[in-house]
């Protein structure tokens, strides 16, 4: 019995250590209203960074998230550290009716999430009639942002091409990212003070990074 317990303890300790050594690649608001997930597409990779294959991307991308002062949310800096030519940063956002923070976009929490995409700014209306909630995502780099099917998250490219005919809408994008380039994302609850545009994000990251 004792060797078995020791093995189990060591396994858990190892797993916890690995997890803590890993940087966050999925961002979720504390109340569950919106999950932002990143992936990478290269000539020979089409993966979500939070899957088992994420170790393959170590040192290719750096993702740093900081909490916002003025509202609930994050400002996130993604930079290409060792990327091959033609790499695309994949990202998806959705699952806004999750009852609490999760690390996956569950299709059941996507139903009736309504996304308004205006250039680099996405507003999602979720919740229930007469009890609506609003969450905002802004990215610093314009790209093809489109509605996609939350049931089709097998890989970033499959999701991106999945189309909008679904009961689990999410938004997805494939955004070219060059070596050394920094792309910012701001996932937040809008209020009188927190009302951000794409061009404000690099400075916002600097401010929250102090």
């Amino acid at each position: 019995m004792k060797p078995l317990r020791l093995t189990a303890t060591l396994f858990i300790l190892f797993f916890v250590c690995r997890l803590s050594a890993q940087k966050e690649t999925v961002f979720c608001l504390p109340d569950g209203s919106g999950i932002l997930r990143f992936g990478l597409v290269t000539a020979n990779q089409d993966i979500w960074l939070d899957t088992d294959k994420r170790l393959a991307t170590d040192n290719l991308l750096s993702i740093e998230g900081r909490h916002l002062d003025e509202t609930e949310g994050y400002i996130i800096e993604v930079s290409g550290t060792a990327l091959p030519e033609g790499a695309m940063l994949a990202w998806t956002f959705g699952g806004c009716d999750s009852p609490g923070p999760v690390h996956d976009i569950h299709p059941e929490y996507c139903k009736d999430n309504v996304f308004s995409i205006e250039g680099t700014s996405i507003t999602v209306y979720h919740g229930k009639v007469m009890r609506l909630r609003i969450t905002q995502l802004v990215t610093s780099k314009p790209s093809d942002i489109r509605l996609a099917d939350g049931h089709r998250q097998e890989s970033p490219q499959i999701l991106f091409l999945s189309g909008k005919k679904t009961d689990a809408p999410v938004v997805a994008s494939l955004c070219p990212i060059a070596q050394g380039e920094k792309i910012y994302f701001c996932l937040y609850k809008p209020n009188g003070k927190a009302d951000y545009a794409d061009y404000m994000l690099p400075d916002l990251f600097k401010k929250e990074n102090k």
Partner: protein
Amino acid sequence: MKRNHFLIMLLGLCGLFHPHCLQAKLYNVADFGATGNGQTIDSHAINEAIQKASSEGGGTVYIPAGEYLCYSIRLASHIHLYLEQGATLTAAFPTPTEGYDEAEPNDANLYQDFGHSHWKNSLIWGIGLDNVTISGPGSIYGKGLTREESRRKGVGNKAISLKECRNVTLKDLSMKRCGHFALLATGVDNLTLHNIKVDTNRDGFDIDCCKNVRISQCSLNTPWDDAIVLKASYALGYFKDTENVTISDCFVSGYDRESMLDCSWKLDEPQAPDHGFRTGRIKIGTESSGGFKNIAITNCIFEHCRGLALESVDGGKLEDIVISNITMRHIVNAGIFLRLGSRMRSPEGTPVGSMRRIRISHINAYDVDSRYSSIISGVPDGIIEDVTFNDINLYYQGGYSEEDSRREIPEEEKAYPEPWMFGTIPAKGFYIRHARNISFNHINFHYEKPDGRPLFVTDDAQNIRFNDIRSDGKEETINPIL
């Protein structure tokens, strides 16, 4: 004297041999530096052309084919902004250094939302002008406008915005993705909207505190908000009714955004931001501090949208309304919704409004959601009266049970008026509350699935008259459930 004769002869010769000689001068924006290349901001050049024309007494500002990336275009009196076939005015996204004109201060902005309370933060705006025309066949694309509530400096949220203008005509345009409003007209008298196609991500035409308005032969696809909506807000800082309005020969719908203009007619996005499903209807209200008088709506088509809605909730009088010859298909909420409420988003002391002398006839509505059936609901201190329904055919989806007829319906006097505020309605035909002198003549109800609720349920309703009421072809003797 000889000199005068010479001038008259010269003008006569011009008229004979040069037909354009006596026409208003044309101001081509290309001559003022507009590029139409879709990359350079051209609003400076267009504004210069407008100013030049205005300083010379008015004329036509001509926009040739091309894509003109713009921030605010400031209209002037006696100007015709003419968009040639192939010309598109495209709203640019704001940058740290450039954007739309700032929203002007408005002391009355407590009584309606931000969008209704400001005009200058728009792609095209005019305040206090006379004799203005904007016409196509070109188009307006509000790409860089927002439909959301951002208050950031430089953000624009309306395609065309007019305040306290006279004699305005908009015609032959196509308008796409126009932010909060394709058109916000507040306090405009003598307004004509003709042959305009709008496919947008929030409201189509908002006609607020306007007098003598003709809207004809327009098509509006607005799945995320109302298509044609008459309002009477307090945005001007004083009460003004919306009156003497005709809406005729129009099509309104809730197909997926931008799928009317490209004729793909998609239906993949059933939900609207307010979570009440596709909107896209003709409505009177919600902003109703002032009243609505002498309105005629006729020969219109609704498709994949909400039903006809007449609402007064902020103290306005809604009177002398005639609605006829309407056909509707695939209606996602109440087929007909009349609501007199007491939200009272008006200056303190404003009394509850009224709703009377309303004639609704020759309505055909097919595939109407049955949850809310049709509703006529006042409030205890606001009674809806003198309404007639003639020759109405309502094809409901049905599917509700007798159990549903026992629901208690909340008053929700101060709630934003939408049928959902009441939950499932206890009637399968009409629910009538706080109303008197209502007539139903030649009304045919049809049900796709059996519905266990009674046809009519009334509460605090007096003198409700029924004549020739049929359900699935069978004549019904109505003893409304009280």
